């Protein structure tokens, strides 16, 4: 389950990891997995490659943090991003040639798996929310996110004003986001309660 990390806790993560706190590593994995994954998908256009990259990046980051190589804890996010960017660039350059990596420990693999489950649930909810949108709203999302058209172009194509297109696009995304936020948190909270009871 994703853990919301407060700024204070976030600042402590590098030091906790350096001291060998396994739960800190899990928190780090939860916090950054999806960010790295999105970055990987966008840059490589390959979901499988992005999944591999998530592991490569997390292993590299955790390895560095265990050695205390991050001097400024406030720059953890930038450090993870920089590591991700370097590994993605390396991968794109060398394509199939991959570095030798140690497998993830069982706990961290489990953390990634829970992210995968959350992703699957998120996907289901997005589909559900999309089905609730009107044809025209879906079309606006399609033109924006797939065809890459701007509001003005969409507006002239659909006979609407640019402002209406912007508003409707924002509203459609908000509907999807709200549904995911509400239902996902309920599902995960429920799972958490059941696990505790077991």
């Amino acid at each position: 389950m994703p853990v919301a990390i407060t700024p204070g806790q976030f600042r402590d993560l590098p030091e906790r990891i350096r001291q060998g706190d396994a739960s800190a590593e899990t928190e780090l994995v939860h916090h950054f997995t999806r960010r790295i994954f999105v970055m990987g998908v966008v840059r490589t256009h390959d979901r499988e490659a992005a999944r591999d990259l998530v592991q490569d990046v997390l292993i590299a980051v955790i390895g560095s943090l265990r050695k205390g190589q991050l001097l400024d804890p406030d720059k953890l996010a930038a450090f993870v991003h920089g590591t991700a960017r370097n590994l993605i660039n390396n991968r794109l350059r060398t394509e199939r040639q991959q570095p030798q990596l140690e497998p993830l420990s069982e706990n961290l693999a489990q953390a990634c798996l829970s992210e995968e489950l959350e992703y699957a649930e998120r996907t289901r909810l997005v589909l559900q929310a999309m089905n609730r949108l009107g044809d025209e709203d879906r079309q606006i999302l399609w033109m924006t996110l797939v065809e890459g058209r701007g509001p003005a172009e969409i507006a002239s194509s659909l006979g609407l004003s640019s402002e209406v297109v912007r508003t409707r696009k924002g509203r459609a995304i908000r509907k999807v986001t709200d549904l995911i936020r509400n239902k996902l948190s309920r599902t995960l909270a429920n799972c958490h309660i059941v696990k505790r009871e077991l």
Partner: protein
Amino acid sequence: MNCREVEEQGVLECYLLGRLPDSQRDEFERHYFECDSCSSLLQVELTVQEHLKLLQPILPPAKKASIRRTWYWMPAFAVLTLVLVAGIWWRARQQQPVHQEASATLGTQPTSSGETQQPPLVGPSLEELARVQPPPYSVTVLRGAEDVAEFKFENAMQHYVNGGYASAIPGLRTAVKNSPRTARFSFYLGACYLMTGQTSSAIASFRKTISQKEQPYSNQSHYYLAKAYLQSKDVASAKKELQMTVDLGGGMADEAGEVLHQLNR
């Protein structure tokens, strides 16, 4: 870069489409690695984008403005038609005897007890309510210790994600046989049975998953078990499982509630 700039300049959409210059792309990535709000929105839009690509065949083609303009006349036509119908109705009403006025106005017939009969509500059929979308699955690639069951499962799920539910069944069966206590295996085996109309096998698999009490598979199994019961026309058992899904309150609760509501009508 801040959230406001991201929104105003449409940075997020350009990023997803790979249209940002390298420097701006790096800047935006640095921003969303630190910003929960943009990171969350980005993930939603990426998922929406992926689903839209899958939905491409069923989306209507883009309407042209000229076509759209013809629809501007529709309200005027609707108002004109309404006025004409109202005029005809008013004239007819003037000519009717007083005792028939009430029934004519409501469009209903009085019963012997004096109550009015409502037209019967028409809901979805049992077959429609039994229809089900396969539970989603995204292929997991973890470099942990892989056993035979996990290997068979992942291979079978390659078929599953491509809609090959029948092809996935043998591999999933082997996975379940090798690792009978893994709820994930029996859950997706049940899903494959359900999608291929093998309802009794689906019911057995989902029951097994529920007994394993491993979340989220156990909770979700109640919903899919209900769908299996509906496919086999066992409405009473379906209602029981749907109620259980609602009571457990997971992500399927709303859908289960809607189906239950339809069944109770």
